[in-house]
């Protein structure tokens, strides 16, 4: 009897543990500068598993820098970044990344399928051949994003929206637990954005998302938390942002209209035109 009682306790204990929010990204007191110019100062940020965090802020405010620090592409001058409790470089196989500029290297002779297969590199050991599983995973990712038809096209022949989807497929093909998106909406036209955000929300059921954006529309309904970055960081645990946060982050007045759920956020400034 005593044995089964303690067994029951153990089960309850396990349940309790799984309910605790798991911190998968921990940025603590991070400072960063380029050539003595401070970019980030004393940034603290914790991201829970399952979160959909959007990082907003003015241009050159340090959004992309923060993302690259979390990816391990940059090293902080002070402070620590941990992803899944590890230095980011050692957790890279659990991370997916969609870079800001998908238009680089457009004349490069590479097919869409080969770009997506890059996401499967080095998943198993030193040999850089692609296995059958790699090809199946690439097919699944391309199909999921609706760009399987263009798999044999040269990467430079795609439209901006298609290119964006291919880069997301490349990030998802390794089945990451957390997905980093840097201005992923920049190449997508206004009509497709709503659709794109729906797809992200769907994805967010299984994948933690950290997205850098200056498109305020992303805040409209799908986001679970917001961080404003402008050298320092202001964090809000829910999808809405407050006037104080915006003022602090942008250091200029920004109109904010928020009523009920979903929230609506409007920016008085002209949005920077996307090219």
């Amino acid at each position, binding site marked *: 009897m005593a044995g089964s009682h303690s067994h029951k306790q153990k089960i309850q204990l396990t349940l309790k543990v799984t309910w605790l929010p798991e911190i998968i990204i921990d940025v603590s007191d991070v400072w960063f500068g380029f050539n003595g110019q401070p970019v980030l100062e004393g940034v603290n940020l914790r991201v829970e598993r399952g979160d959909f965090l959007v990082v907003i802020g003015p241009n050159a405010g340090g959004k992309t820098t923060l993302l690259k620090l979390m990816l391990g592409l940059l090293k902080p001058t002070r402070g620590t970044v941990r992803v899944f409790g590890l230095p980011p470089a050692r957790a*890279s196989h659990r991370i997916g990344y969609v870079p800001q500029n998908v238009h680089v290297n*457009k004349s490069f002779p*590479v097919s869409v399928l080969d770009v997506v297969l890059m996401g499967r590199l080095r998943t198993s050991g030193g040999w*850089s051949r692609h296995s059958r599983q790699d090809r199946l995973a690439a097919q699944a990712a391309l199909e999921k994003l609706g760009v399987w038809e263009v798999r044999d096209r*040269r990467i430079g022949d795609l*439209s901006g929206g298609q290119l964006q989807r291919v880069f997301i497929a490349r990030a998802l093909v390794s089945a990451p637990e957390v997905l980093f998106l840097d201005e992923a909406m920049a190449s997508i036209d206004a009509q497709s954005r709503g659709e794109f955000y729906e797809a992200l929300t769907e994805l967010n059921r299984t994948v933690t998302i950290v997205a850098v954006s200056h498109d305020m529309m992303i805040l409209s309904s799908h986001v679970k938390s917001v961080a404003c970055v402008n050298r320092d960081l202001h964090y809000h645990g829910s999808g809405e942002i407050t006037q104080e946060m915006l003022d602090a982050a942008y250091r200029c007045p920004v109109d904010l209209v928020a009523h009920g759920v979903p929230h609506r956020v409007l920016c008085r400034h002209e949005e920077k035109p996307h*090219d």
Partner: protein
Amino acid sequence: MIEALQLEFMRNALVAGILVSVVCGVIGTLVVVNRIVFLAGGIAHAAYGGIGLAFFMGWPYAAGTTGVSLLAAGVMAAVTLKAKHRADAMVGVIWAVGMAVGVILLDLTPGYHVDLMSYLFGSILAVPVEDLWQMGVIGIVVILVVAWYYNDFLAMSYDDEFARLRNVPVTFLYCLLLGMIALTVVMIIRVVGLILVIALLTIPPFIAEKLTASLRAMMALSAVLSCLFTVAGLWLSYWWNLTSGATIILVAAAGFFAALLWDRLRPRAETVAARAPGNTL
């Protein structure tokens, strides 16, 4: 051409030209897509210092040149990885100093009578059989290494940041690539000479890039184009009694301008959606 091939030196020249073409196709493609043409030029001119050193010390050509160009490649790898923003200036310094050291060492070599021109424009008609074997070995090594790391080189060349995230050893591959460029350069100097190394490393890949849809195909087409230019140049130089290295390059240049013209004039199937800003490695 048939009667020309009955001469042993012409047969050797042809084999040397084909070997160089294959290696240039592979390495030149990586040089062009990684945008390190200037670096390759620096290594080639530093190699001239190696030629001077080999003569001054009485070493065999290959030993001095290979050693010095590998050293230059190592220094350039360190400089471009550590001090990116001034890397081009440093490459320029190594470029000039290597060349100057070579000239001075040749001046100081007692009883020096080797034709300087043969190292500037190459001496494809005087390639001995032992050198062919050396070229063959270098060629096989280069092809095997690139084949083994093909997908890693592809990822590094296309998007080095993403490649790093996928645990591709980008720094190691970059050093490996510069090392292979050094070996290739030593090999090409023999055939088309120092001045024209860059032409053979860049012209065929530049033409091939527009016509192919994968890095592999670009390498293959570059090698074929390079072969065409080399053989045609060799034949013309034999026919009209011209310097072979320079003739090969002029044939390649003709191909280059023809490709540019064709690219201008052909009807475009699709227009590029967005303007791409320049990328830096």
